[in-house]
């Protein structure tokens, strides 16, 4: 029994099962359900992004554009060519992945902050392309997407759509988990920890940086496709730097190199602003949600630098060696 509970894939599936069931057995507001859907969708993108940032140690500040690309592709192919939803979902993953490979090539030449800004520029340029390539994106009038149908069953209700996104999420989690606990995962972490040693052990930086970018943009594209079929609309302004920064925040708040962390982080970033907005006595302050999210971000970094997913481990560790503070005080010079 204990063995099963330590089997992570099993736990992922079990959790997914329970989560997918919740809306079906409880009576939830439709808008709350939409939010739950969004959380899972962002979780998918965050997991991909975590592979890139948390495992491979490569930063990107332009990932929102890949999510947008996935959204546009899926909207375009389902509406204009009546491509079945599942096929367009796959396409919405694959095409951003190919574009992501180009970004990966850039990453081969750049490090750290230079990479951050280059990816930021890449994202802005891609977003600008959404604005100008009207034939494909319909410009600012926005692209519409149909309600997805799977084997003839239309996912019109939020509860059903939720089951779909949870299944996709669980499948992608399992894939990521398997991959990350095999050769590829070890190579990515090795590359992050020490590029030299990784190379000396036969890890090709070329190959694994490209893999990391390809995987993360694939996940982003899938997330984008699910997003656009949930909201059934998208427009270029959505896929700007603020969403990219949110993705980054999700991964760091949740915990770098942690799959459950990515999910937690997504939930945190999507849910907190909504939660704050509903607190009545705060409503007179303009932008209180933004201030609150900002403060939360800072506090998490300062006090839980390993992310929400590792809070319990962190507390345990600090209890064990109480003399050692989790955040060492800075030495005065």
């Amino acid at each position, binding site marked *: 029994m204990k063995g099963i509970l330590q089997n992570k894939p*099993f736990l992922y599936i079990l959790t997914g099962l329970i989560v997918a069931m919740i809306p079906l057995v409880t009576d939830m507001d439709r808008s709350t359900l939409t939010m739950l859907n969004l959380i899972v969708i962002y979780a998918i993108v965050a997991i991909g992004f975590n592979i890139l940032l948390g495992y491979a140690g490569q930063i990107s500040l332009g990932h929102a554009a890949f999510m947008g690309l996935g959204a546009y592709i899926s909207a375009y192919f389902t509406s204009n060519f009546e491509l079945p939803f599942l096929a367009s979902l796959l396409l919405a993953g694959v095409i951003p992945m190919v574009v992501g490979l180009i970004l990966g090539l850039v990453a081969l030449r750049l490090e750290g902050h230079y990479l951050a800004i280059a990816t930021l520029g890449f994202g802005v340029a891609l977003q600008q392309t959404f604005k100008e390539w009207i034939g494909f994106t319909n410009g600012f009038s926005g692209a*519409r997407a149909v309600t997805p149908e799977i084997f003839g069953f239309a996912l019109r209700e939020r509860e059903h759509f939720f089951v779909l996104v949870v299944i996709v999420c669980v499948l992608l989690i399992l894939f990521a988990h398997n991959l990350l606990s095999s050769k590829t995962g070890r190579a990515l972490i090795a590359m992050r920890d020490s590029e030299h040693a990784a190379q000396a052990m036969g890890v090709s930086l070329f190959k694994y940086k490209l893999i990391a970018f390809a995987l993360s943009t694939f996940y982003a594209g899938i997330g984008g496709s699910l997003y656009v079929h949930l909201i059934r609309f998208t427009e270029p302004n959505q896929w700007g730097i603020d969403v990219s920064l949110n993705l980054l925040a999700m991964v760091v708040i949740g915990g770098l190199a942690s799959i459950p962390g990515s999910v937690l982080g997504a939930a945190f970033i999507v849910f907190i602003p909504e939660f704050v907005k509903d607190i009545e006595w705060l409503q007179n302050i*303009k932008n209180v949600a933004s201030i609150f999210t900002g403060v939360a971000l800072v506090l998490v970094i300062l006090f839980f630098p390993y992310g929400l997913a590792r809070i319990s481990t962190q507390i345990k560790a600090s209890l064990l060696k109480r003399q050692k503070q989790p955040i060492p005080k800075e030495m005065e010079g």
Partner: protein
Amino acid sequence: MRNYSKKGLSLAFIFVLLFSMTACSGEKSTSGKAKEKEKVELAQGVTKDSVKIGTIGVQSGALAFIGTPYFEGMEAYLNKVNDDGGVNGRKIELVKKDDEFKPDKAVQAMESLVYDDKVFAVVGQLGTPGVMATESIVKDEGIPAVYFGSGAKQLTKSGENFFPVQPNYYYEGKLMAKYAVEEFKAKNVVVIYQNDDVGRDGVEGFAEGLKELGKSGLLKEEGKLAVGAADTDFTVPVQKAKSLNPDVVIVYSLAGATTGILKEFEKVNFNVPMITTYSNADASFLALAAPGAPNVIENLHVMGWVDAKPEKLKPLMDAMAKYFPNQKVINAYTMAGWVAAETFVAGLKEAGDNLSWEGYIKAMNGLTFTDGLAPEISYVKGKREGVTKMALSKVTKNDKGAFIFELKTDYTEFK
């Protein structure tokens, strides 16, 4: 940790099975829900002494400067109506939702208004992305939606329950073409437009207007100059405009970019008649733009669809002073919000006690409203164009040396 057993696979299988089961049961529950809806649909959000309505728009973030005055205008009008006893004894209750100008938030907001708060109507939803994203919900549910704070042109064709008021940018562009040709006798026009949903619809409408007037030659392809809303340097478009030697310049951008463009005009001393959009037709725009361009601003003409004569504006000014005494900024957005509420209430009065959605839509279909800030709003015979009559005002200095708008033309339609 890594003894992934066959259990995993078999569980995945069970998972899929469960999914298909729950999917079926889910379907049952929804059809139940649908029935429930039918029962209350007659007057969702209406009681004998209240009508609950909802609105969605940006109230935080970068674009809050639009939403804040807009919703104040709306609330000022509704407060006034409520303080005067409401409509047929019913007080109007407004539920505001912030969508941060994001489609997904707008969808959530619309869902909670329609399904959770169960409002009677959606009034004055603001922001093109949100309006577009929620269009399908409004259409599917058939809930009356009055006034869209959006210049998107397809709203005129969205359906019976859509009641646009504010003219769309495309139409305004067409009307600008008419003014350029008929008022200014233009031979050579340049359009500087904000490169987003606002400006692009405007420039498209302008070109279409010229075409319909048989004057396509007035605007050349190189005469369409894009600017960004957040640009910090307007030298290039203004240099280009100047080099084309136009006799009229259309400045189709919102306040921020427009002030930047005017300053650049001032810098290079480029004096040519300009026409800008109704979004800039208010005193706060002048307060923003005039200091940096005191000379060229007198060349500026602005489109207007609300009657901004002081006597017409008095109720608005009084209500704002009463309910929002700290607000100094009263601008085109405030007026827009005011008109949104005004139009909805006009329909509510018309509908009397027949407050089903069908009843309200029927009442609106018979409405031609001329008592408000807008010169005329009519939905008779399925008309859904919103306001079509607009007039041109010019910036001038009054006796005290302050810049004001002076009405130059009658309210006219395109053809």
